[in-house]
């Protein structure tokens, strides 16, 4: 998959501009960015739904707009917004899509995926919950064993068990040599599934990083609420980096010596203590400057 100087400008000034990104065969890349950054526009250009103003997008050497039929033979696509025909059952939809991929036989893989996602496809789509529709969309995207996957927020609406099953599936796809571009907001998901991560903001790719480097930068943020001003000063003196302060509530990072931090806390009147990992956007923020971080 190759994007070279890919540009699409909408009348409102939004769009994607001069995108360069290349995915090697068998590589899985996470595609991140805030809402409206251009992730979905990139994906629509790759799917041949939109025509670029300039530049070039290709998959397996085929132009995504001019040779979209050949491209779609290779691709499994999961749209960000699930919009199924409501007046069908899950099986009827899968039958329709399978018939449009003939002579490819999708039956065995379809059954396997339905079983894996514990999906009853006999149900009418209009009666399905958001999570069930997402599972159906995943089966539709994967049942023809595509060599390339384009997934827009694949785990949105899935419960933790199904998210886990999806990640297992992505591990298998990676081993099978599938190339994939997936947008996501969840570090754990991208960490397990992806080899690299590309960050897009205001229509431009601002960074592409290896997963290993991002993993090394993953840090914990502690949120502490204390009872007195003196406690705040004690914690500040314990060698932590204060990320944010809201009255007597602090967000802080601990560098190195956790024991010293815990001993300091033991002397304070701690009303609340919470810990959370930095999300991917925050890590990128940390890497690429605070100005961008605040707008993410």
């Amino acid at each position, binding site marked *: 998959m190759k994007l070279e100087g890919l540009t699409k400008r909408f009348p409102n000034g939004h769009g994607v501009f001069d995108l360069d990104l290349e995915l090697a065969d068998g590589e899985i890349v996470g595609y991140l960015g805030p809402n409206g950054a251009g992730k979905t526009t990139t994906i629509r250009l790759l*799917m041949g739904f939109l025509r670029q103003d300039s530049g070039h997008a290709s998959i397996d050497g085929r132009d995504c707009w001019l040779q*979209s039929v050949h491209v779609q033979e290779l691709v499994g696509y999961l*749209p960000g917004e699930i919009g199924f025909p409501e007046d069908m059952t899950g099986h009827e939809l899968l039958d329709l899509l399978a018939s449009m991929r003939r002579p490819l036989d999708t039956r065995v893989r379809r059954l396997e995926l339905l079983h894996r996602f514990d999906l009853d496809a006999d149900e009418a789509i209009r009666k399905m919950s958001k999570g069930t529709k997402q599972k159906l969309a995943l089966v539709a995207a994967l049942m023809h064993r595509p060599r390339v996957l384009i997934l827009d927020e694949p785990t949105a609406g899935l419960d933790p068990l199904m998210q886990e099953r999806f990640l297992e599936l992505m591990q298998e796809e990676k081993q099978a040599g599938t190339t994939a571009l997936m947008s996501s907001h969840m570090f754990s998901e991208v960490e397990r599934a992806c080899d690299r991560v590309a960050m897009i903001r205001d229509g431009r790719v601002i960074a592409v990083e290896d997963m290993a480097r991002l993993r090394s930068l993953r840090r914990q943020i502690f949120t502490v609420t204390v009872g007195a001003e003196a406690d705040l000063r004690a914690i500040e003196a314990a060698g932590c980096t204060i990320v944010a302060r809201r009255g007597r509530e602090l967000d802080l990072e601990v560098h190195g010596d956790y024991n010293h931090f815990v001993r300091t806390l033991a002397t304070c009147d701690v009303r609340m203590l919470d810990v959370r990992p930095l999300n991917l956007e925050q890590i990128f923020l940390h890497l690429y400057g605070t100005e961008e971080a605040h707008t993410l």
Partner: protein
Amino acid sequence: MSLGLFRSEFVKGLRTVASYGMGMVLYVWLFIWIYPAFARARALSALLRSLPPGLLKVLGYTIGPTHLSAFLGGEFYSLLYLVIFAVFAIFTATRLVAHLIDNGSMAYLLATPVSRRAVATTQALLLLTDVFIIGALTAGGALLGVHWLLGHSALNEHTFLEMNLVGTLLFAVVAGYSFLASCAAPDERAALGLSTALTLLFYGLRVVGDVSSQAAFLAHASVFSAFNSAKLIQGQGHFARDALGLALAAVALYAAGIAAFRRRQLSL
């Protein structure tokens, strides 16, 4: 085209086609059933003859409602048939393309290795098939109704079928420009609005053109003028010219719709 898509969409739309078809048949039966009482109502006939000739022309009473053919051609086929068929054509054309784009399900169809041209061609053929089914059901139902309710053939079947063919082709054209709107308009509401406005405009032009001799030229700008049911049913119209003209217009409109869909930017 894609056979799988055609089959799926045909089955999905079958209930609607059957409902409209049965509606047409029941209405035409109603007209055939009330015709004997209507023909006997001389007082009413006299009253109608006292109306201005222009108005009678609009209503289709060019030769007076003394024959079943004049009654059906002037009554059922000049208003109710047009309304029911137009509603069906506009809504079906919108449902087959613009609705699928608006609700996002077109994404799944276009993510398969079936080209945009093939998807649009399939939807166009499906629309035409549905229009011809309704046309055939109406014609067949009317002929059956005449034999069943009147017990004899009070119609010239040949000219009656010619009229029905031209009527069906008229709605292939109405469905054709609705299909073009469905493929080219920015969203479903715009497509529906455009098709409806155009149909009302064409119908209005014909009515105004028929009522006023000074404005007769307006009727020529309306596609509805190609379907003069009152004359066609009597064998007095220009069957071959009208049928050919409508068929060519329909082919051009569907081709334009397919071309527009191929070039369209899709937010799916």
